[in-house]
């Protein structure tokens, strides 16, 4: 079986997915992904030229809402669910960089 996904690529994917996987866990997932991707190449046999991708099962268009204010949530109730809340806001540890 050819290698579909390298260890480095899998590590990059884990980083993109924000999953801090232990080395053994990453190795196992990588080999499982590899096996799956290998299986998934069965579709390479299909001639898909000129076929439009299908993203939605039921074709709807222009589903719009009127610009009317609706109910809001009670912030006390919402912030009670937060792992950390300070001054009516959600607390997080230092953010390592600006948003992209």
């Amino acid at each position, binding site marked *: 079986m050819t290698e579909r996904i390298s260890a480095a690529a899998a590590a990059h994917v884990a980083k993109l997915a924000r999953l801090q996987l232990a080395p053994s866990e990453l190795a196992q997932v990588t080999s499982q992904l590899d096996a799956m991707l290998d299986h998934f190449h069965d579709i390479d046999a299909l001639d898909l030229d000129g076929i439009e991708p299908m993203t939605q099962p039921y074709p709807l268009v222009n589903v719009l*809402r009127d610009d009317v204010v609706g109910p809001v*949530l009670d912030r006390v109730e919402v912030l009670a669910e937060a792992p950390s809340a300070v001054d009516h806001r959600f607390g997080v540890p230092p953010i390592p960089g600006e948003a*992209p």
Partner: protein
Amino acid sequence: MNAVDTHSDYLIEGRTGTWELVVGLEVHVELATATKLFSGAPNHFGDEPNTNIDPVTLGLPGSLPVLNRQAVELAIRIGLALNCEIRPSTFHRKNYFYPDMPKDYQVSQYDQPICSDGWLELPSGTRIGVERAHLEEDTGKSTHQGGDGRIHGSVGSLIDYNRAGVPLVEIVGRPHLRSPDDARSYVLELRAILLAVEASDAKMEEGSMRVDANVSVRRVGDTELGKRCEIKNLNSVRSLGRAIDYEAHRQVDLIEAGERVRQETRHWDEGDGRTHTLRSKEDADDYRYFLEPDLVPLDPGAEWIEAVRAAMPLLPRERRSRLATAAGVEVTSPAVAIVVERGLDDLAVAAIEAGGDAGRVLVHAEHNLAVEGAEALRPAALAGLTRLEVGGQLTATQAKAVLTDLVTGGGDGDPAAIAAAKGFEAMDASALATMVDEAIAAQAGAWAKYLAGDEKAAGALVGSVMKATKGKADGKAVTALLQARRAGG
């Protein structure tokens, strides 16, 4: 229609040659809707933290977005005002983790934006291309604790999601700007357009209009674009100009020192007047864009688009041209731009149409009406005032005083009556002529110089007439009489 690159007189003389600046602006504007882009939570600035939130705003599990019709309407208005094509469009998910983004993806238009390929005309007449304008949702707001409120060195951050989900239109300008002045002018013009179509309050200080500048430099004559830096944190039009100017020189210095410009995001620091590296773009982001499956395609269709077009107000460009035509001046004349910017062009055009003197109307609108209540001034009153002026019944100074009274009095007064009440009774022509003759007799020396062609000598003669009339005489009328006497009249 594409704008053309324009020649600019902003060039940087380096050690090794002359450099040209290339700027493209990306502007995010918050739309003036009542609710968010995808839910009924209020879109309102300045409220208590985390009060304008609902399940969709917070990206709660199970919540689903439904598109706000008014946000689409405003995006169409912006697109039409920027001469864009309004097209069928779709929404994608832009995936990246960030704590102020509740779903850890942003719903944004990607390869099929609602508005594409337009232009914006600066008051100078230069057209700047607009690549696209698309709808997307805003993020929440983080407050950094410690570290002087900056992200670096902070001990933690607090997040308010009131802003999350607020509708934005991102307007991506083409790199057609060639000077800091043009960049400023672009932003001011864009702001005027947004206000005109009532799409946004477009306040840079409050963040409802956020400008990022893509800046690069190249040697004059080069056609390839240089490596660009994106500058963020431009909180005023002034910062924008300063930041671009700084960045252009930084890049020229860098290249001339044999180094290369790295493609990166830079932060403008108003305090030290420099830009600083924010994050490198060397390792490219991977946003894993894919079509947002919780939304369906948007196709406004000709009927909706034409209805919006029909309801469009006059845009600043159209107002400038209307005023210039009425006043008989060049559309690019600064007075025209200023009067339109002040919103006094309706008044000015109406006053000219009501028989006012075009030149005097424009002068008053440009110089004497930047005051509260000016818009309430009755066009006929302004027209009447200018007729008194050109008829010689009021001097420029007197006219200004009358105008002030007109405005403070609610704009509805009669200029002649106000002038009379102020004692600015019109001097009749023969009385003025007599006083001119008296002045000539009293100041024979000055008259002799004036006869010899010394125009400055007229000042003393006019001054003496003014003194004698306690300023009621019209300086222009006096000068005209002097000229007539000299010519033998």
